[in-house]
């Protein structure tokens, strides 16, 4: 199973809920590995997270525009991807956009 482990700039750590494993690509193609530095492969990817209680709490409920101290919106935070407990990527992540409706 894929785990997305993050740590914000205040040192708060969390294993975020992810939609499903396919959202996070954990393989790297021969082309990408052969052109590191030229092709943006899985080392830079965009994925969607579900709006669960855990995720909302970690990101400080920033779907509410008035919520203070947005996490990972205008800065990056530490993140690592683990598969069955083994870390395969480690780097930084940030929030691209937030989807909500008027019921939150």
């Amino acid at each position, binding site marked *: 199973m894929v785990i997305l482990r993050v740590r914000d700039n205040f040192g708060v750590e969390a294993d975020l809920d992810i939609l499903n494993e396919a959202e996070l690509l954990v393989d790297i193609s021969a082309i990408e590995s052969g052109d590191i530095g030229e092709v943006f492969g899985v080392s830079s990817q965009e994925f969607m997270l579900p709006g669960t*209680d855990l995720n*909302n*709490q970690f990101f*400080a*409920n920033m*779907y*509410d525009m*008035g*919520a*203070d*101290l947005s996490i990972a919106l205008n800065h990056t935070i530490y993140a690592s991807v683990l598969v069955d407990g083994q870390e395969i990527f480690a780097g930084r992540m940030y929030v691209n956009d937030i989807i909500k409706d008027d*019921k*939150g």
Partner: protein
Amino acid sequence: MAITVRQNSTSPGIGNGHLIQSVTSNSGSRPQFRFVTDINDKDGELLQRVKQQANPNGTGIFDLGNIIPNYLGPTDTVWDISAATANTACGKDFQIRFGEEYAYSSTGSTAIYTGESPDAAGDPNVSGSNYIFLLDGVLNSAAMTNFNWSSGSKYDEEDTDGSSTFSYQNGLTRFNTASVRLGDYHTLSFLNGNVAGVTGSAVNNSEAQDIYAMTIRQYNSAGTLLDTDYIYNNAGPRSDQSELWDDVYQAQNENTRLVHFPAGPENLVDSGLTLQTGLAYYTLTFNNQTIEPGINTNGVYGEYRFDITDANCGYDGVRFAWKNEYGVWDYFNFALESSTTSNVEREQFEQNFVDFSATNTVTYDRERRGFEQFQNRVNKQRTANTGYLTQDNADNLRELFYSTNVYVQRSNGEWWPVVIESASVTEKTNPRSQKLFTYTVNWRYANDQRARR
């Protein structure tokens, strides 16, 4: 006072709804002015800070119903309790505090002020209610009274000297009767004590929704009373039934404001009660306290009836528990046929009969496979059927289909998480032809079988 609270959520309330707070300030003309609202937990620890510019009318309007549900739950796993049990996370105290932020010039640094008068820098500290106790339930817009839960339907403070007569149905469920089998677990939950948002020292000790005891009366099929037993609410603030409310009312907190009672046949057996031979049904009556102390039988906070049923037509049925609209458990037996369909996804490859990897000579081997299935994934889809339902039960069962938190009781008494997969619910649409009707629900265990390989 710099901040004036114009509107605030009342206690008790329900978290997943519109929790509207409205404030004004006489500092609104200051540069870079913003209203600040802190959502704090029961101890005053900050959970979330929200800021907002004043609207064109100089008012700040916050709807905290989008944020607070993230801090409620998970629902207490109290299915198999054998005594009155205090709340853990089905409801929580929140301290909502208002303040303001401004600077003294349009380019200056802003600071946060308490909102009190005179102005002082610090965390927001103005409130409309000392705390609000919110249940982990859901409140639809049309069911609100002035943006609040009509808590009077489930919360009524009465005299704590046990001298008053009243009759309510304040259990946090819509089911007043239930059919249960011996071996079934069931719980009933009540708001308990003082939940009106008043600070501890200001609580009026002469009024509370004091759920003192539950009386269990067992009857046979002729309606003859077989036995009477009692389970006292010693989950808090009382720790013993000999204590008067006046002795303990200061010891209330978010854990004591909601109490779960054991209600199913198996819960009662686990509590030490003996179910009588010939038991056909039993009633559970919830009363407040007299000053002896004893049970005030004239003060009824709820009475619930449980009919004992056997396996219907030989079917074992399926017992569901789900988080209801009040954020506590409801239960129902789907008593008729249940079935399971296993869909197996098979992954296979074809192997050559000749073993080209042999050493020296190739062994002629009839047991060597051609087709080999190397992974079979089992997906078990289950259905359960109700018997014929009354209109009330049919209406109340809608919450099962809407709930995101559903469990099934196994024959060994364990509860396993499941997901309901029915895509839609067709409610009674033609009252002339459909006097009675049934529900069929498709469900599966949340943890499916592991693939074979």
